[in-house]
């Protein structure tokens, strides 16, 4: 009976319930997107990865089979399989920063049985960890390997904990959230802020005057596996 009454109490409560507002400083966009400029990214630099993982309490498990990662680097061939040839000497040694692509047509959202993963109206593919049941359909569906599963309690694997952001628990999937919590507070994503070389840009891809749109016209731009139809929103200048 208690469960049956919940919708009723919700309706009653919402009638009298005070309103909620977006953050005063919140940044908004029609569609958030990121541009990675491989011409500027420095080999060996880990600033963006460290910043992201520190801000979001991403554990360093140490075992590659159980690793948890939101953003990492890979080779050109790793990022763009099928687009390499034997003589791409210049690109071969360059690092490519990869993360969740916040797809316009996300396969992870489509398969999630609990709607723990969903797409916001501003394009961010978000997770509601409260709802995640750890079935890992999303991990199977994501063609970019952008999702990690918590095979164990992540807390012992955190060197320092950011008290302003929760951790995850054993049995849930996690991934990059385009720093939705920072955007709500009016600050850019941690990786973009941490990059000293300006290799990462973030903005509203649907705004013709935005920095990301201008960058798209400054070089040859690739997206990861666009042929799959997911509409990735992380763009790579090679």
């Amino acid at each position, binding site marked *: 009976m208690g469960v049956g009454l919940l919708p009723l*109490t*919700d309706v009653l*409560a919402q009638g*009298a*319930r*005070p*309103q*909620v*507002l*977006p*953050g*005063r400083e*919140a940044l908004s966009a029609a569609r958030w997107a990121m541009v990675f400029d491989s011409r500027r990214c420095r080999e060996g630099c880990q600033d963006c990865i460290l910043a992201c993982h520190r801000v979001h309490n991403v554990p360093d498990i140490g075992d590659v089979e159980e690793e948890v990662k939101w953003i990492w680097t890979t080779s050109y061939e790793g990022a763009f399989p099928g687009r390499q040839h034997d003589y791409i000497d210049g690109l071969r040694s360059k690092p490519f920063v990869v993360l969740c692509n916040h797809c316009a047509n996300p396969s992870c959202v489509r398969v999630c049985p609990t709607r723990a993963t*969903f797409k*916001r109206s*501003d394009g961010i593919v*978000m997770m*509601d*960890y*409260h709802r995640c049941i750890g079935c890992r359909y999303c991990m199977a569906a994501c063609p970019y390997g952008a999702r990690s599963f918590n095979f164990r*309690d992540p807390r012992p694997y955190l060197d320092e*904990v950011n*008290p*302003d952001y*929760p*951790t*995850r*628990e*054993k049995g849930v999937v996690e991934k990059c959230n385009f720093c*939705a919590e920072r955007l*709500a*507070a009016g600050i850019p994503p941690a990786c973009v802020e941490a990059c000293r070389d300006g290799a990462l840009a973030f903005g509203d891809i649907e705004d013709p005057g935005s920095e990301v749109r201008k960058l798209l016209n400054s070089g040859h731009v690739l997206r990861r596996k666009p042929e799959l139809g997911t509409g990735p929103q992380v763009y790579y200048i090679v």
Partner: protein
Amino acid sequence: MRIYNAPSIIAGLLVLIGLLTFPFWYNAGDVVAAPEPSLDTPVLQGLQDKQCIEPTPYMRSKHMELLRHWRDEVVRKGKAIYVASDGREYEMSLQGTCLDCHSNTDQFCGRCHDYAGVEPGCWTCHLQPEENVP
């Protein structure tokens, strides 16, 4: 009507009923003191007006609904600010708003939850203030 083996069947039924109702009569008459959530935290002591974001009776009976509402508004709808019924505004954040005052989670949340036998499991992800971490 006749019951075959009536004495043993009736005796067996009585034993069964006795076992099933054991928790009721075993605890009958016991007085368990009502939980007293502690409001003794540095921030709360410094407050002139010790009023939670909504009136205490509402918070007492509906805090779980309020938190659920906050969670959905923040995570799923991207909202950030809650306007209370008296017009004051708060950031919708368990760690950032609730635990600012109620930093003694074990003595505040824990006492009632233990008494009621509920285990909300907030702290597997949300971080408790340091004073509560063993």
